[in-house]
């Protein structure tokens, strides 16, 4: 398995900066997003949501709403409850004894977070639906809401679900080596507590759902702004009891996801159920302020991390204990998100022992789930900040402590402290490169000068070296983690008699450029033109088999499936060629884009020519099926392990706390690069999102569970004006997990950037004695940290 692809074919496209074929329709405004779809006779759906984080529903009066102009129907959650089977699905019961409440798409008797939908109206226009939704009268009895994570987890807390005796849903543990013994004997112990605030994903396209029914046939087509049309279709069929073949799910152009569209949402289930009830085409489009409550949040953890080390800073063991905020319900993969980081709290460092424990806790807040990086940014943040704390403790430069502890370069699988079989790695190379690029020594000198002159503007430098696990995921590993589905991906390659090639992929891009990258792979492997390859995706009628896009999996699983399908096409093409030239298969080689008889270049045929032969079927080997089309479903044998080093330099106005990112250097290793332009774009966006998380963003609730950062005005997403340009570079250590040598890059920036930024802030404030600051390091937090440190002196 672990072999690099045999390349008899010159690579024209792979590795080159091919411009994206997706772009023309996007830059001209011709692309079709969900909200661009209008159907004849279509009606508008609007949800009525609870203003309370926890309340008993006494009654819902729809009469006034039904009298509003244009209203066609209105339903309470109770009226529709029978349509929803077992409720919304959670596919990841991480332990045998996990507490897993029923999750109704519309609440019936109790609401458990502000924003939970309780009723729904259908009207002829967007505005009329909105008017009617405001006329629905709901009588609530407010209950105590449990908002604070530690309070929720404590004995005697108000229960989010009173059928359970505690808000603690599960505790999941992993331990290797003699952790307790090492900690009891180690000369240096670093003990830190970090907070991971909740984040609101904010894909710029809000969600939306359009459903077109054919009532007489009981058939439905759904367009949804989703990352996971395949998963969604299967789950909708399960929840509503539909025949899977009667349901077609289309993810049209999708305007970003970042994990937030990896979900089976209340609105998708309800709108589909309503289309069945009414027989009408229906549309729901999320308003942004609604999105802040209705779409799942990310992160939300308290992290207690301890390092055991020698006096010189040599790491011995890592112990991490996580309290993770589930929110009010378990969504599709809510419980498993923190576990995706559970293997990475020792980072790129060689430790002898490791333990990880995570407790998932219910609160009266919107459910959490995947957000760019999903578990891995949290882990990387904890270990990278703890390594800086260790450096301070042993009085060494943070770069030096990291070098001391890096896993030594390896190209045979290495078993990490947490038990991962890491494919390959060389971690000091990327750190050296990053430090050299940013001019580390010079920056340190300038920093010293500013400190000496007690300049108002102080400089800080922060380092983050990371490893992540991508390529979700080997199905058997998922089974051992109690995940309810597989981690494979499907591809079909269809060679048309006209010479054109169609690639059907089970991945579902929403900005990642799969059409371009998959075309590059196939064009090179089959020796056809890039422009002759068309990639189809995101429609369950076109690509019936798929596991969709998330977790930096698309290339390292879906792209590899495309590669294998191409290899199958070539194998068949070789048989046809051998037959036509009356040669043995062993005498045929694929060379310069053609199948040819070895040593007889005049006896050669291109794949398009062979495709034509396969279509006419006039002269095929005995028993061969006509046509040149192959499927492949790839189940990865292992994860892939991208890694890298990021260095951030900030300047801080120490009077106000205002912080400016002055320079940012990223050196990433995502294995073999198919398209460097796309890879760089992913890194840029990831870094920006990571800095945003570290500097600006936080979902803030009051003690009643009311979201204070309730719209885009208050939840602070940085614009171009707040960010610098980034310097990106790469090292290339091909993955041995797959024949393309690819690893994945979609989340790297978001994983590496938060600790790089926070470490730089703490570094800048070192002269004041500051050793800790929480995310997001807002000007006020920085100002407070300086004042508190001054007060401690």
């Amino acid at each position, binding site marked *: 398995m672990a072999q690099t692809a045999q390349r008899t074919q010159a690579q024209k496209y792979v590795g080159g900066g091919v411009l994206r074929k997706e772009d023309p329709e996007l830059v001209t405004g011709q692309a079709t997003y969900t909200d661009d779809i209008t159907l004849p006779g279509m009606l508008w759906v609007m949800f009525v949501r609870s203003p309370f984080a926890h309340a008993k529903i006494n009654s819902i009066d729809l009469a006034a709403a039904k009298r509003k102009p244009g209203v066609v129907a209105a339903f309470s959650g109770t009226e529709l409850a029978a349509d929803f089977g077992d409720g919304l699905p959670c596919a990841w019961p991480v332990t045998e004894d996990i507490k897993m409440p029923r999750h109704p798409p519309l609440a019936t008797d109790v609401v458990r977070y502000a924003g939970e939908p309780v009723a729904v109206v259908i009207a002829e226009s*967007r*505005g009329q639906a*909105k*008017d009617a939704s*405001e006329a629905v009268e709901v009588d609530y009895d407010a209950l105590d809401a449990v908002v604070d994570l530690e309070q929720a987890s404590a004995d005697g807390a108000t229960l989010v679900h009173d059928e359970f005796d505690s808000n603690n849903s599960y505790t999941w543990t992993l331990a290797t080596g003699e952790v307790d013994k090492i900690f009891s004997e180690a000369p240096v112990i670093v003990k830190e507590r970090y907070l991971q605030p909740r984040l609101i994903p904010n894909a710029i396209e809000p969600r939306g759902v359009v459903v077109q029914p054919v009532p007489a046939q009981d058939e439905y087509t759904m367009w949804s702004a989703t990352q996971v049309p395949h998963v969604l279709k299967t789950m909708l069929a399960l929840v509503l009891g539909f025949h899977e073949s009667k349901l077609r799910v289309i993810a049209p152009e999708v305007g970003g996801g970042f994990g937030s569209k990896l979900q089976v949402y209340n609105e998708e289930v309800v709108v589909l159920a309503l289309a069945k009830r009414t027989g009408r085409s229906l549309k729901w489009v999320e*308003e*942004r*302020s609604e999105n802040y409550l209705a779409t799942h949040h990310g992160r939300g953890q308290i992290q207690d991390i301890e390092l055991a080390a020698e006096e010189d800073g040599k790491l011995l063991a890592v112990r991490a204990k996580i309290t993770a905020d589930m929110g009010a319900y378990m969504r599709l993969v809510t419980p498993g998100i923190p576990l995706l980081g559970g293997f990475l709290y020792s980072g790129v460092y060689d430790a002898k022992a490791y333990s990880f424990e995570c407790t998932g806790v219910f609160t009266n807040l919107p459910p959490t789930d995947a957000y760019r990086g999903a578990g891995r940014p949290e882990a990387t943040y904890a270990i990278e900040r703890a390594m800086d704390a260790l450096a301070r403790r042993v009085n060494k430069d943070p770069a030096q402590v990291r070098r001391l502890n890096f896993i030594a370069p390896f190209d045979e699988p290495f078993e990490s402290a947490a038990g991962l079989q890491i494919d390959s790695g060389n971690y000091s190379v990327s750190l050296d490169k990053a430090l050299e690029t940013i001019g580390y020594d010079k920056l340190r000198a300038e920093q010293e000068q500013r400190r000496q002159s007690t300049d108002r503007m102080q400089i800080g430098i922060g380092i983050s070296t990371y490893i992540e696990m991508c390529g979700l995921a080997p199905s058997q590993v998922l089974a051992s983690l109690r995940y309810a589905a597989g981690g494979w991906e499907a591809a079909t390659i269809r060679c048309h008699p006209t010479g054109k090639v169609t690639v059907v992929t089970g991945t579902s891009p929403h900005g990642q450029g799969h059409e371009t990258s998959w075309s590059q792979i196939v064009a090179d492997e089959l020796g056809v033109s890039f422009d002759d390859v068309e990639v189809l995706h995101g429609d369950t009628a076109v690509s019936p088999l798929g596991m969709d896009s998330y977790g930096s999996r698309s290339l390292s699983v879906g792209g590899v499936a495309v590669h294998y399908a191409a290899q199958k096409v070539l194998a068949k093409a070789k048989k046809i060629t051998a037959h036509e030239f009356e040669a043995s298969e062993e005498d045929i080689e694929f060379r310069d884009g053609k199948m040819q008889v070895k040593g007889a270049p005049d006896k050669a045929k291109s794949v398009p020519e062979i495709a034509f032969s396969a279509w006419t079927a006039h002269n095929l080997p005995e028993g061969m099926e006509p046509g040149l089309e192959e499927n492949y479903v790839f189940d990865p044998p292992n994860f892939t392990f991208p890694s890298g080093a990021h260095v951030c330099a900030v300047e801080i106005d120490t*009077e*106000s706390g*205002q912080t400016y990112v002055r320079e940012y250097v990223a050196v990433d290793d995502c294995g073999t690069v198919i398209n460097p332009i796309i890879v760089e774009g992913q890194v840029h966006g990831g870094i920006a999102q990571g800095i945003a998380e570290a500097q*600006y963003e936080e979902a*803030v609730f009051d003690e009643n569970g009311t979201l*204070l*950062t309730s*719209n885009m005005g*208050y939840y*602070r997403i*940085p*614009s171009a*004006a*707040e960010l610098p340009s980034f310097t990106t570079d790469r090292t290339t250590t091909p993955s041995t997990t797959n024949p393309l040598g690819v690893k994945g890059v979609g989340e790297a920036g978001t994983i590496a950037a938060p600790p790089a930024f926070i470490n730089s802030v703490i570094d800048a404030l070192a002269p004041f004695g500051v050793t800790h600051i929480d995310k997001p390091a*807002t*000007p*006020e937090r920085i*100002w*407070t940290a300086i004042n508190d440190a001054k007060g401690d002196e």
Partner: protein
Amino acid sequence: MIPSAFEYEVASSVGETIDMLGRYDDAKILAGGHSLLPLMKLRLAQPSALIDIGRISDLSYVRDAGEEVAIGAGTCHEDVHFDSLLTEHCPIVAHTAGEVGDPQVRHRGTIGGSLCHADPAADLPTVLRTLDAQLVIEGPDGQRMVAAADFFKSLFETDLGPHEVLTEIRVRKLKGAGWSYQKFHPRAQDWAVVGVAVVERDGGAAVGLTSMGETPLRATGVEEALASGEQPADAARRATEGTSPPSDPLGSGEYRKAMVVVFTQRALEEALSR
């Protein structure tokens, strides 16, 4: 996202506006709409009628009025920002108009709209209060002048009667006096955590504060300290006197009180060095 329904009337003159306002209980004037429409889209404001004064071209001007510059209330921020008269005679107004919102907002939002909305986090009200601007108001009983100091009553409340229209803002020419507007906002698009306006005058400076209370404020303590000859760094310490800043996701009241001192000092230093 969709506002509640409302009656809509287009006024062609100030007089007609006043008549139209008289016909409704809770009509609102629509100029650029960049304070009002965002609230209506969230249904936090549901006026029964909008009187659109955006087409009264007579309300959009900047003209020389002797010792003063007169600005039509319907002049958009962009035009105020780039106006040559203001740049010459009252640069703090031109400068601050360029600090409002973002380019798209400045193309639509108007100086009069910003004043009448009376958000204490807005920049122009503070600057105009600092300049002791005179506001020209027309109503059923004719025209009256109100000092900016008397115009802002409390949070989102002004001296404007229900049937009155703000038509003009008059600011005195600075004649080379030093000035500064320090807007402290972590993101360019953010409202001011605090803002400080300073305009040099005989024996000191006028100092105004943004986001430090229910209305734009004057830092009279600072002004007194300067008048009595204190240095900017010392005078700035009195910037918190009489303030009651809000606590919100942009910053706590305590933080705002600390920042207003920092930025008052910076504004004073900049103004007095200009």
